[in-house]
């Protein structure tokens, strides 16, 4: 079923379901093992764990940059582990990603970087113009719209990356250390943006080491990875939160 049809269909209970998922790169050992969990629709999740635990690999599976080597992954109600690659773009348009290394297009202005998801999904230029100006102003970069990434500071680049990830109001927002390069005030603003999106129905998954960020979001669920496996001592993942619980986050 096309992603757009699914989007207009019944409300999904979970946006992502992992069933016995394993991942290995090449012939190496598995970096992710036996992942069995689901992310509730509208949930807010922090992904934590020591370096090398597999957080970035798990995020890659979530934003469809990697296929699992075993097991099944469903996103938005569709089993995508072996879906043809032509089917993936429609699902990617429903996912916003904030990369740890920003992944901005260096020769494009901040405006064009943020506008990219809208233009790719066929949004008209008038709408793109107003939406991007508003978003850049919101992340405090209204006066840097024409600046190219190499002329922006690390924090500014991160804000452009976040603006690009959320400009399309994604159903699923995946962020890898999104506050790693910004000051405390901007981190608070970005967290506010994430929780605001979450209130609008976006499921948010944030990989972070930032304890302050986690403690500032008390209702969020925690996914802890160790040695490629999910550690779930509270059982929160087996009993995903209802929408009401995440509404109390902001």
């Amino acid at each position: 079923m096309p992603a757009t049809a699914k989007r207009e269909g019944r409300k999904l209970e979970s946006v992502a379901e992992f069933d016995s998922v394993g991942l290995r790169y090449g012939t190496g050992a598995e970096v992710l093992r036996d992942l069995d969990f689901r992310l509730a629709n509208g949930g807010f999740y922090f992904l934590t764990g020591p370096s090398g635990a597999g957080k970035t690999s798990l995020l890659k599976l979530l934003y469809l940059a990697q296929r699992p080597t075993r097991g099944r992954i469903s996103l938005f109600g569709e089993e995508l582990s072996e879906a043809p690659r032509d089917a993936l773009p429609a699902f990617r348009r429903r996912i916003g990603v904030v990369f740890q290394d920003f992944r901005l297009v260096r020769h494009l202005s901040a405006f064009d970087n943020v506008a990219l998801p809208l233009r790719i999904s066929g949004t008209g230029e008038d709408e793109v113009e107003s939406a991007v100006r508003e978003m850049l102003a919101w992340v405090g970069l209204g006066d840097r719209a024409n600046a190219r990434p190499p002329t922006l500071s690390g924090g500014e680049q991160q804000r452009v990356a976040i603006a690009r990830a959320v400009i399309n109001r994604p159903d699923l927002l995946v962020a890898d250390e999104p506050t790693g390069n910004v000051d405390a005030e901007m981190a608070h603003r970005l967290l506010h943006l994430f929780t605001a999106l979450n209130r609008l129905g976006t499921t948010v998954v944030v990989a972070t080491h930032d304890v302050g960020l986690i403690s500032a979001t008390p209702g969020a669920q925690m996914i802890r990875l160790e040695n490629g496996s999910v550690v779930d001592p509270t059982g929160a993942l087996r009993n995903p939160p209802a929408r009401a619980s995440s509404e109390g986050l902001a």
Partner: protein
Amino acid sequence: MMLAWIFASPAERRLLSGGRLRGPTPWVIAIMSFSIMIIAASGLALTNTATLLSNAIEARYSIEVPGGGRDLQHLLQAVRSAPGVTSAQAVPEAEMRRTLERWLGPGARSEDLPVPALINFDLRPGADVAPIQARVSAISPEARIAAHRETVRPLLNSLRLLQWVALGLVLLLSAAAAAAVVLAARGALDTNRSTIDVMHGVGATDLQVTHLFQRRIAIDALTGSLIGAVAASIVLLLLATGAAFAGQLTGGATLGPIDFVILALLPVALTVLATSVARAAVLGALREAL
């Protein structure tokens, strides 16, 4: 729409780094286009030459009478009155000796040297030479009839072979141009790999990415093809103006209107080829990734 990719918005044009005519691709294609045009023009001129020659001698025959022309006038009358003969002339002995002099020197003028009598005649297309052979043999049993097309067949064969060589060279150069475009497309993909990853990450389809490259390579190919075609046209014009083209290259044959249409279509064909190859190369490369 199939050709929607040609009309990119300014924002789409900004997506790929680097500008047009900054790489070697347009210039490589210009050289290929120039070479293809010159070779194609030569090939077409050879075709016309072969056709002219073939038409001129197709129905022409010679009667050779060893030992001289005792019965020459009688033979000439018999040939002229034969059905299907459109014209017949006896070659004067003086002309024969002048011709032989080129090979034998002044000795060819000697009366001691026997010179065969020669009658050239043309047949109407489809006419049978056998009745004429019978008439000639009745008058002069030792006379032989030779078809000119048999005499010049090796030359015609060589001309036709050269046509095929020209066609082969055109195809070979087109293949080389296509290979250059594939390399250029792969280079452009590598240069823009991070942009492509970002585009895929935010939901771009392979076709959306491919159209960016396809459009740029189409413009580069068209620019290069036209540069090469203009340069080739100037060279051909100079050759033709100096009468060298018509006289030496084509042996008297010239290029006709259809030939010019073919030559004018070559840059377009090269552009279409380059664009199609680039599209296939980019799509193929993109499919290697997730």
